[in-house]
């Protein structure tokens, strides 16, 4: 019983830290963006203030009960997704759910948001969700191929097993560099960073799905965004960079967890910053351009990566 309580508390702590870290990442992105534009930029803790302000707004509007599903499903789904992602070698619930489950859990918050924004009856929201879904179909093609290459090469769909097999700097990025490249390209679209911020284009469609959300609704969606910044970068880190596990927890105990956590934070930051730098200098694609792009180059690269994994695993019989 005691173990269970400690386990739950630890999981909650990790999720809380991840959301906080996600807000910090958003702040860092704004700062970097400002510096690239030769501005001073807001303080890095700006997003904490923003969320606080939004949640403390005096009035809020809703359109109907389906509208409420957006923040509820959005935040709940985001927290749930965080629970299934190993962070710094701590596996949370990822032992009880594999990558396929994670892939489908990741859809829950976006689906909730799509429902809520659709219920606002604002045509901009509909167009925004249409773009988001089209973009999803676009980037999932290379991303699923890279996932498949990993799953075939490591012969597992479990993230925690994947981390074990990458221990000792046997990172997947060294073994399957092409897949990693394709996954990073897909990540840019997944995080809706420029040039793929088509669904939330503020100047074209009034920030798309978010058009009618304000106050606490927007605040909770911002928390969802923060959590997902961590989810997406952390997914890349867990898949290709060994999840930041550099010390073996069975050997070093609690110190290993702390060191690994910091390495994980650092790696997440690196992946995030790469995306932010690309974001800072690019204009926006149109949605059909984005679709053509994703089904062309990243898919070719991912297919090559898949071929490499297939040859190594099936024909050469490499067992990692």
């Amino acid at each position, binding site marked *: 019983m005691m173990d269970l309580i400690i386990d739950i508390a630890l999981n909650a702590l990790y999720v809380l830290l991840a959301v906080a870290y996600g807000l910090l990442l958003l702040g860092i992105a704004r700062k970097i963006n400002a510096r690239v534009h030769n*501005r*001073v930029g*807001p303080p890095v803790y*700006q997003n904490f*203030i923003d969320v606080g302000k939004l949640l403390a707004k005096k009035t809020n509007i809703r359109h109907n009960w389906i509208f409420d599903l957006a923040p509820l499903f959005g935040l709940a789904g985001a927290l749930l997704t965080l629970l299934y992602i190993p962070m710094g070698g701590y596996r949370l619930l990822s032992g009880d759910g594999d990558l396929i489950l994670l892939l489908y859990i990741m859809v829950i918050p976006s689906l909730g948001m799509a429902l809520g924004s659709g219920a606002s009856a604002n045509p901009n929201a509909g167009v925004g969700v249409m773009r988001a879904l089209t973009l999803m179909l676009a980037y999932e093609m290379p991303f699923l191929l890279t996932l498949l290459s990993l799953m075939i090469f490591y012969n597992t769909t479990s993230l925690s097993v994947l981390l074990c097999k990458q221990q000792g700097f046997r990172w997947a990025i060294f073994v399957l560099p092409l897949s990693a490249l394709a996954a990073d390209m897909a990540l840019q679209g997944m995080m809706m960073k420029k040039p793929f911020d088509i669904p939330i284009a503020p100047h074209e469609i009034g920030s798309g799905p978010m*058009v*009618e959300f*304000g106050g606490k609704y927007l605040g909770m969606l911002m928390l969802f965004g923060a959590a997902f910044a961590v989810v997406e970068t952390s997914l890349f880190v867990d898949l290709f960079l060994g999840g930041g596990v550099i010390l073996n927890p069975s050997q070093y105990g609690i110190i290993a967890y702390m060191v690994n956590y910091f390495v994980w934070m650092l790696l997440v930051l690196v992946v995030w910053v790469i995306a932010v730098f690309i974001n800072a200098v690019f204009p926006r694609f149109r949605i059909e351009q984005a679709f053509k792009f994703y089904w062309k180059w990243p898919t070719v690269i991912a297919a090559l990566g898949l071929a490499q994994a297939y040859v190594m695993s099936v024909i050469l019989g490499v067992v990692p």
Partner: protein
Amino acid sequence: MNAEDWKKIQRMMSKRSLWMVHFCTGCGAVEMPPVMTSRYDMERFGMGPMATPRQADILLITGYLAVKTLKRVVRVYEQMQDPKYVIAFGSCTMNGGMYWDSYNTVKRVDKYIPVDLYIAGCMPRPEAIMDAFLKLMKMIEEGKADGWKRYKEHYEEYRRNQMRVFRRWDE
């Protein structure tokens, strides 16, 4: 922690994170890009442009308002969530400015929506705008920027003034 402390925290947060929907009317909007970009950079104070009034805290009236535009401004203002603030730019919004004798221009904006802060000038320079933003932040902290409360209190009066100009609400 009592209610007053919470209020203080809330004010502190809302002053440090002012999101604006810049409803570009008239010529004042052209002064906004310098304020946003590297010369003055208002994002230092957590201010930034937002796409829709649902998300925004301040409404900038950047210049003269035609009667037709006023209706949209009122709608945008009513779609914003409390607490919300209005800054009116330039002399046109105070007394009509160079359009003082125009049949189609609103002479005093604060007859129709509560304005928290006016910036004088034709047009105000970015320095003046920055100064106004800082002033507004100070007012928020002191709880003086209470236009949204006034609008709620005197809603009938504001609506009466608006209807005098519009005649019809739905055109």
